[in-house]
């Protein structure tokens, strides 16, 4: 699987290259700014991209804007955005682009290699990987409708919104995939969402719901 990385910090990008190489990914290009990233995407047509939010020259949100631009040019291009901090606002802007294949994670998560590689694979496969911090903030903000859920259902909701599959959620909570399935049915019923078993469409429905709810 070919990856294009946009990361200006050499220490981090070489770390990522090492980590991705060991996990069997092929790093096609490492760009150090937004323009370089867009050029590399056009040239290599990667299977998945990893983008740092802050890039030269302004070191503000160039990465987010480059990711949005790349997804406008190549609809559905899988993008995993990495950042030293997470903002709901950025998650919302990324989610507003159509199609799946989206990830937004704290850089901290990279150090949990298995989880990170799993997230990258999910994004590459058109799935979603949202940072637990983003989800926690969204769930907290959503307030009332979420309060109708049982604590267990809330746990399942949080993990599902991160983009995890049923069996992974089951492993995390040490319950069966079947129980997860049942919980999800209840959650969708309580939130008034149409049940959909298709992996990432389900996640997008939940995220869109959380994003809009107050």
């Amino acid at each position, binding site marked *: 699987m070919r990856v294009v990385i946009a990361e200006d910090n050499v220490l981090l990008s070489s770390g990522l290259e090492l980590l991705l190489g060991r996990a069997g990914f092929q790093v096609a290009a490492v760009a150090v700014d937004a323009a370089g990233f867009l050029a590399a995407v056009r040239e290599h047509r990667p299977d998945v991209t990893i983008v740092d939010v802050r890039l030269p020259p302004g*070191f503000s949100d160039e990465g987010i804007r480059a990711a949005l631009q790349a997804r406008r040019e190549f609809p559905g291009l899988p993008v995993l955005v990495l950042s030293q*901090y997470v903002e709901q606002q950025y998650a919302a802007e990324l989610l507003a682009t159509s199609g799946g294949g989206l990830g937004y994670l704290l850089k901290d998560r990279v150090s949990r290699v298995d989880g990170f590689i799993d997230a990258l694979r999910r994004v590459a496969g058109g799935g979603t990987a949202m940072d637990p911090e983003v989800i926690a903030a969204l769930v907290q903000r959503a307030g009332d409708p979420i309060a109708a859920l049982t604590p267990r259902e809330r746990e399942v909701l949080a993990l599902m919104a991160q983009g995890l599959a049923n069996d992974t959620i089951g492993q995390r909570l040490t319950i069966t995939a079947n129980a997860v399935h049942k919980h999800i049915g209840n959650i969708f019923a309580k939130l008034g969402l149409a049940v959909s078993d298709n992996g990432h469409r389900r996640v997008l429905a939940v995220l869109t719901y959380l994003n809009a709810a*107050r």
Partner: protein
Amino acid sequence: MTTRYLLGSLLSAVVTLAGLPVWLVPRAARFWAAWHRDRAGWLLAEPRRPPFPAWPPSPAWLTLPGRPSLRARITRARAADGRTLRAVLWLPVNIVTGLVLGLPALLCVGNIAVAVIATPLWWAFPFEERPRLFIDVPVPDWGTALTLGPLQIGLLLAVARWVLPPPARLHARICTTVLAYETKERLADRVAELTRTRAEVLDAHGAELRRIERDLHDGTQARLVAIAMRLAIARDAFADRPRDDDLLERLIRESHEGIEEAMTELREVIRSVYPPILADRGLDGALAALTAGCGVPVRLALGDVQRIPAAVAAVAYFTVAEALTNVTRHSGAGSADVRAGRTADRLVLMISDDGTGGADERRGSGIAGIRRRVRALDGTAVLDSPAGGPTVVTVELPCGW
């Protein structure tokens, strides 16, 4: 309003005359004059502080250490001398203007009262003592009472409405002119105030630096030391024969977890120093993100918030963040408003909600934190939260232009 002002002026003239010995005491003279100056300013609609209750006195660590410098005291004393002199000279002016300009108002109000009583009750008076309208017209029957009474009331109300304001303004203007601060005094006051606030700002800023230092020293730095120690042991143990793989695994795992915790802490410290979203999006973008992420719907009205100094923008961001946290946690509000904009050299923030009010700073709400940060920039923070609501937090921050 102007009639009330004139009646007050008349009363004040009488009180000034009656209590003349008291008003010759410098402190009393200055107080009496200052009170009238404010009153006149209010009539002339000079800008005043917003009608919000003041903040409670500042905590001990914010008060000035020791006495003000000798020079500051001398400057202030000189300014006070000039003010006393003018206040004493103003006393006769106040007596004369108060009597001359206040009497017509008294006559006007008095005759309205006469008409109000005479119109329905003229018959209750003995014949020779029948009340007189229009100064000297006795009221013999209902016909006269019902024509002349309302006419007199109407005419005098018209006088109060259209004729009395100019003398009231004249009185106020004489008052402010006589009592106006000289430029020198104004500057002396300003210098005294700036000296005081600068000391407070330095104190508050120092406290902020110490907090950051403590967070980094006790948190992140301590963690890094612990991690380095574990890695050093692991490196050492790696060469052991036979190698204790369990120990190595534990040391590396603990190091890894320690680094993750250090990263989380560091992120918190960074956020508390300068929120990254501000660097990314500027104050307008950061406030938009903040209000969009709030648990209750927030209307955001932004004026000109471009080119706000970074330190001011950071405090503005914290203010809105803390205030909105309070709105979600304590107010029970259904919606909130955030307004931010510049007036002259200040950034003004106003966060209001339609909640239950009764916010109490002492019950550990984030308002103490807002005040601490606002003071560090020589700004003002005002909380208005009557029981039953609404709650309004107003913060003004000088931008140094």
